[in-house]
């Protein structure tokens, strides 16, 4: 159960990122907000529920059971367990790189995906690259633990282009934030 305890993840990363200083302090602050996202809101109901889903690696989702770790231009690349949109890796960018002329949104939705190589769970920030027309390559829509807008940080439909010069959606990256163990 612990692996996917998003509250615990959030607290850990809050502390970790709060420790950052230097020139990346603003990134840290935003990163903190970002990573704080999955930590809140507290979920009294789901936590209390007996029926809380079993998210242990032993009972992986259909996506996780079929994921691969060699080709980040395919929808079943392991980090893409909750991505929705065009893969920046197919659009001149990369797994954590925006294509030329586009700009990564400092805030994003997040997913918790299992790396098939080591069976461990990682926190992934799906940062949209913004300011270019939608890239028409490699559209994926994976939905592991993807929820509705009232839990925005887990929703992959929102245009996550905040604080960027243009809010036009271009493509999505899957940035590894850290282990979720």
């Amino acid at each position, binding site marked *: 159960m612990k692996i996917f305890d*998003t509250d615990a993840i959030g607290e850990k990363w809050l502390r970790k990122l709060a420790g950052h200083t230097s020139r990346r302090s603003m990134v840290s602050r935003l990163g903190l907000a970002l990573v704080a996202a999955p930590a809140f809101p507290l979920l009294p*109901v789901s936590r209390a529920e007996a029926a809380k*889903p079993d998210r242990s690696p032993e009972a992986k989702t259909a996506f996780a059971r079929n994921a691969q770790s060699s080709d980040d231009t395919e929808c079943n690349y392991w980090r893409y367990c909750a991505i929705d949109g065009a893969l920046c890796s197919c659009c001149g960018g990369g797994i954590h790189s925006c294509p030329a002329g586009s700009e990564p949104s400092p805030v994003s939705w997040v997913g918790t995906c299992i790396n098939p190589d080591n069976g461990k769970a990682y926190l992934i920030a799906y940062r949209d690259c913004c300011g270019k027309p939608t890239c028409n390559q490699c559209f994926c829509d994976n939905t592991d633990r993807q*929820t*509705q807008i009232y839990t925005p940080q887990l929703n992959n439909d929102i*245009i996550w*282009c905040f604080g960027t010069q243009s809010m036009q959606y271009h493509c999505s990256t899957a940035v590894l934030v850290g282990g979720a163990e």
Partner: protein
Amino acid sequence: MKSFSIWQRGMVAALAVGVAAIGFPAQATDPHGLEPEESDIVTIETPKPDWFYVRAGWGIDGTAIYDGRSGKMIGIVNSSQLSDMAIDPAGRFYYVSESIWSKGNRGARQDMVTVYDSKTLKLLTEITIPDRILVDERKQNFILSDDGKWGYVYSFSPASAVNVVDLTKRKFVQAIELPGCAALIPNPGVGFSALCSDGTMATVAAPTGKAEITHSAPFFAASDDPIFENFAYDPAKNMAVFLTYTGLVYTAKMGAAPTISQPYSLQEAAGYAPATTKPLSVGWYPGSRQPTAYHAASGELFILMHMGEYWSHKAFGDEIWVLDVASRKVVRRIALKEPAAHIEVSQGADPLIFLNDEKSAGLILDAKTGEEKHRIEMAGAGVISAAPGL
């Protein structure tokens, strides 16, 4: 060359002088006649119970109006990308909540509720608002009060709020912060309600004034078994009908303190075991972009269902299950030839179902028999609305 040049100069002069004064009088000329014709402009009826409104889809402007009986297009309501449309309950106006930049994908952002006359489809005015969420495929981000006097526009900046618009005076009233909540629910006589990430329902009383926010007790698992947005609301019963990813059905009697029912399983209502959130457990699940449609007069909920495992909640529907919400029974199942992404049902006495997929293929079925009535190519790939039960 000279004569051509003279033609052009003449035309430009004519345009410069008189374009605003041009009238194109309507004529009853036989369209297949051989007499010289003049151009005219069609005026349409106010919303009819068999009409459907279909967004063109991602990246494409416009919301097409189709007459479900004939399968014909009535017209198109202007609507920019990521806009939301709401229909005046009295049928006089179409309201489009939209965000437009002054230079396409750059420049100054302009958020507004744009007002169109329902008969001429002409733009009447724009009501400036401070912000709104940018997301596609939702019907709960822009709702109207039952009397049509107020509009509520959901905003996410990324702070969560609701912009209140006075549709009579056509001006913005105020923004109400609504942290952790979204998916607006009509709540006549009170204001509006919303679903929250802590599993509660928030109710905003007096949204045009003091805007007091109260919360229900937590009743659903927002992260583990979320309630689908694009849920149903029954104006006659003043009741919302919710469905979760696993197929739990909730009803909520709206009011100052909404009363939320104990849930029951949709799958059990069809004779199956209830679906679970566990991996490796295959069953029928609700899903797609717009998974439910509700026919108020009969109390029937139409649900797009597919076979799969949990977290497949965006998968397109292979069957429509028809749930009698009150009796808790799935009374019909309609198998689909092609998986559907959106479903809507008309509110008249002989309801029609409108389905589409992401390739824009539209399908109109008889809601009672499932019989195919019309197929419309390029009907639109986005969210579908039905005319209100006027």
